[in-house]
């Protein structure tokens, strides 16, 4: 093996220009993969963390509501949500549980209702303070004080309604029974945090309960644990599911809530596709280089075979050379791609506001996206470089092993 490595180095130095060009191809390919995966990790990693924080690590909902959630059946709610909150708080590892209501409503500043429709969130003051951190994102006015008939509007929503702090807003929705229901709260603050927050209205839990005629109920109870990792949440979900007080209520970990189960395979698929595309293209470069190398060294291979080099040895000769190029290119690509990724991790890329509006009102996405460079994507880059080299060298190396010594030496003459 050491001899093969020495031979690989020697052969690589034979045509330095070609070797460097090939290594550069591998470097660029792996750099692109590193940057792409860092970018995807950054965007979706942020979104998943934010969604877990906003939607709860575990959510309790009525089982019938969950079955038809896309229809938002308000009557399938948790009628005694305080009992569910208490049950959740008794489980070891749970750091908080909060009832919450979300509903849609027509909104208007003046007397006449128009076409402005928005999502209204009603939650406890504790949830707003400890989880949404609403007060930290106020850009005008203040957060809710807990008194009735107050509303805080997201920045986009306030702009759409052309309404300012101090003015009265009419909310016209429906009770859980389908009859019309109204609120006329005063706008006490305007908030801006991400695409989702900016497009929502926030009222007290009591006001939301009144609006939906829900008594002491809530649409969901959000449960938070010490960490959002699956290993931490699994026993909590199991304990909630087994609690007889929560009969008819389903606990759901954040990672199993849509759109994540649909989105994650898509993200993995995108990463795999990008990696495969780069693998294919840069493998062609290695293939080209190795094929030319085999053709140039036909005679030499023949002599070495005549001197006892086995077929496997001939394969290894070219494979090691390719792997060497691949490792150099892979490490270089990881460094280059990692550096670009770290730049994007600090500076980020800012999207057009309109594009973000179209994409992301339902998700807590910010206008500026940051990459996330981590050991995972750097390791992927180096491994990818090696794989590129191996795949590209495979066929030429096999051909080299098929060269007959007599034929090779005749050609040399």
């Amino acid at each position: 093996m050491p001899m093969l490595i020495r031979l690989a180095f020697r052969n690589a130095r034979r045509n330095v220009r070609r070797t460097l060009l090939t290594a550069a191809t591998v470097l660029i390919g792996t750099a692109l993969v590193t940057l792409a995966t860092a970018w995807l990790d950054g965007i979706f990693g942020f979104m998943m963390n934010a969604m877990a924080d906003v939607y709860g690590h575990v959510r309790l909902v009525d089982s019938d509501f969950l079955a038809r959630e896309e229809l938002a059946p308000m009557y399938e709610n948790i009628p005694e949500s305080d009992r569910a909150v208490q049950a959740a708080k008794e489980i070891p590892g749970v750091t908080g549980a909060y009832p919450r209501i979300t509903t849609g409503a027509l909104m208007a500043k003046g007397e006449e209702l128009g076409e402005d429709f928005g999502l209204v969130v009603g939650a406890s003051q504790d949830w707003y303070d400890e989880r949404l951190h609403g007060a930290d994102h106020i850009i005008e006015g203040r957060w809710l004080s807990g008194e009735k008939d107050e509303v805080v509007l997201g920045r986009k929503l306030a702009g759409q309604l052309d309404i300012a702090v101090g003015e009265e807003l009419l909310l016209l929705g429906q009770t859980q029974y389908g009859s019309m229901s109204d609120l006329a709260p005063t706008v006490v603050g305007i908030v801006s945090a991400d695409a989702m927050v900016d497009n929502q209205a926030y009222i007290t839990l009591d006001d939301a309960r009144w609006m939906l005629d829900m008594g002491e109920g809530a649409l969901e109870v959000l449960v938070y644990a010490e960490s959002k990792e699956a290993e931490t949440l699994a026993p909590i979900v199991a304990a909630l599911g087994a609690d007889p007080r929560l009969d008819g209520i389903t606990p759901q970990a954040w990672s199993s809530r849509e759109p994540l189960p649909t989105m994650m395979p898509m993200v993995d698929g995108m990463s795999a596709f990008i990696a495969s595309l780069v693998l294919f293209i840069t493998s062609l470069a290695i293939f080209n280089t190795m094929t030319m190398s085999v053709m140039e060294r036909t005679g030499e291979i023949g002599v070495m075979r005549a001197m006892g080099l086995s077929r496997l040895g001939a394969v290894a000769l070219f494979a090691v050379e390719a792997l060497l190029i691949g490792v150099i290119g892979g490490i270089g690509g990881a460094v280059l791609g990692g550096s670009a990724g770290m730049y994007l991790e600090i500076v980020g890329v800012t999207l057009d506001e309109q594009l973000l509006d179209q994409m992301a009102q339902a998700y807590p996405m910010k206008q500026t996206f940051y990459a996330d460079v981590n050991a995972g994507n750097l390791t992927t880059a180096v491994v990818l470089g090696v794989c590129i080299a191996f795949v590209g060298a495979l066929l030429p190396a096999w051909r080299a092993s098929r060269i007959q010594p007599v034929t090779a030496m005749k050609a040399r003459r």
Partner: protein
Amino acid sequence: MFSRIAVLAVVFAVAPLPLVALAEEAAEQALPTADELMKAMDANLQYDTRTSTSTMVVDDGRRPRTYKMVTYGRGQDEAAIEYVLPERDKGTKMLKQGDQLWLYLPRSERVQKISGHMMRQGMMGSDVSYEDLMSSDSFDEQYSARVTGAEQIEGRKCWRLEADAKDDTVTYPKRIMWIDAETLMPLKQELFALSGMKMKTWTMGDIREVEGRQVAYKMVIADELKQGSKTVITVDDVTFGVELEAEVFSRRWLERR
């Protein structure tokens, strides 16, 4: 020969008897015309003024809710409803003026015009839509109909009437009604969409005569699109020809506390 004549004479004397019996039976079963029935129903709905108190129980199969309301009416084009129970909905009012409907929401102290898609919503989440409330034109004006036979509904003889809307502005393009042969009240109605899908079933019972008019003291409305949902309206009392304030049928009344 004599015997032959005698036989023929008997035959000709007896033969018409079944026909006569059939003719008599046919006379008894003679169907009224659709026009007669619809005009009779329309006439029953005519009044100058009316006031009533009612209880509405909305049962959607989950949690029944009970509402009490006071209703005022003047002719066919003006009506006002005020909810007095439950406490949450107390003070909610509706005003119908011609083809316009207004809703007063006490919490926000706002008057909201009901139009467009809102008209299809159930009043207080019930199976009676705002659109149902708006219908004021006479049956005769809205529908062309035919009597298709006689059937029993709740032990009472009824004329079966099939009616098709004369134009596409009518809420229910097709109706089948069972009109009580004695009171001329529609004891049962099936209301259909243009596609032929049955939308609602409306039944009336506890028919009593009040000041020369037939009044249904109980109505049950079932929305066929919402499984297991029905609304029962029970009239507690009704009075015709009462003196009503002019303001009752105005927007000022809506906002008055």
